[in-house]
């Protein structure tokens, strides 16, 4: 099966959940639809959703929760 990385649209801090106490948006093994939220990027105190850009299954998260990331950096890998 082909794989595809979901890239960070912005530089900032990557979050896998909507708040510290919330459950993660997605876990490894979860099926996602194109456009579904898989995490947030905090950039300059504002939060932006990260969407899956294809239907698929999340194989792994490459970036950890609260990890600083650059624009274009892979956040998670999908099998499509």
């Amino acid at each position, binding site marked *: 099966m082909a794989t595809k990385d979901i890239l960070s649209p912005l530089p900032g801090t990557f979050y896998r959940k909507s708040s510290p106490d919330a459950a993660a948006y997605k876990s490894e093994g979860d099926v996602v639809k194109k456009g579904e939220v898989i995490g947030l990027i905090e950039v*300059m*105190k504002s939060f932006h959703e990260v969407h899956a850009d294809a239907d698929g299954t999340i194989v792994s998260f490459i970036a950890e929760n609260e990890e600083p990331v650059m624009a274009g950096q892979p956040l998670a890998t999908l099998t499509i």
Partner: protein
Amino acid sequence: MTRSVQSLFIANRGEIAVRIIRAAKELGLQTVQAHSLADAESLAVKLADKAVNIGPPAASKSYLNIEAVVAAAVASGADAVHPGYGFLAENARFAEAVEAAGLVFVGPTPQQIRMMGDKVSALEAAIAAGVPTVPGSRGRVETSEDAAKVVERIGFPVMIKASAGGGGRGIRVANSRDEFDRLMPQASAEALAAFGDGGLYIEKFVASARHVEVQVLGDGRDVVHFFERECSLQRRRQKVWEEAPAAMLPEDVRARLCQSAVDLAKAVSYRGAGTIEYLYDETTRDYYFLEMNTRIQVEHPVTEMITGFDLVREMIRIAMGEPLRMRQSDIIMRGHAIECRINAEDPAKGFMPAPGLIESLTVPGGAGVRFDTLLYQGYTVPPFYDSLLGKLIVWDESREAAITRMQRALGELEIGGLKTTKPLHRALAADPDVRAARFDTQFLELWLEHRASMLDTY
């Protein structure tokens, strides 16, 4: 009591850290700049005599980490800590920790920070000092009879607010008794459904409010004011464009407003730089206390421009135990000053943040122009903190001349490599309503709804 201070630790970042370093150097102090891993190449680090890494990029693990900041300050051998604005500047626990470590905190006492940081105790202090507050029920109204008594006292229009609400949710405005009687039950039912609490309170509604604020300095005994600023041009409650003085304020109102700020600060024996914020109703000429900020503010330079005093230098002197160096009669305002906040945001794309590399930089100059910034060519603006890149400040003899000078300075300012809010300021400076000082705190949001798309052309 005079405290011997030789070395100042700056527990902040960005343009305000640069500003503090400059004031400290003029006082002959050594400077120690705290920085996160992401700020190792910052202008403040380059300008300071010494720099100390206090943790990872996330502010919660560096600039907001009280233990790490205090430990770094002690280890650096500094004798005083300046908190700047934001981060820990209004955190009473931080001020306590600094003092407990035997260092001087450049700011008010922890008790003063705590009192003014709590909405209820701040309002009580204002009322006790005779400062006008927004008329209203001062708490929940339990019955419709109580509600009726309140509106009879304060008059229409009134605002019905959910006790449990926030951020503008659960607010209704009634312009007459009929409307009030109709809206009260609706508001209660809605509050119950939305917040699980049907409690309501009532406040006078000011349809067109302007934000004015008075700058004060206190030494723990005496207090002086440095007149007022107007900061009505706001987006999402963030100030965008600030001025001093407030152009529309009649002279007699100005005198009473500034005196009320002094009264409040004196009543709490205020120490350091502080700002008392008010809501001003231009139609009735009434002003109402909103809150007191117990720190230096972003927009302090416009006050410095019209009075000629260096507020940051004075607040350090006060922290060192010196009495106020000026009497009220020494503080005279002259001309008009304007500050435009230049943020790393794209105003044409919903103010999307735009961190990144500064490929080129041209700083405006000439008479009456000041640019307080964290930028230098080749610097990479990190994505982890707020988007303020710099503050373009101009002074001129009149407001009209200051706007013209701001347009000239904005024309010179070039920040290559990322999107900034410069086009917004060029558009505002050309707007007939802005030029005529016809605006309130709602103005900019409405203005942006109609004009955001054309900001590309500025």
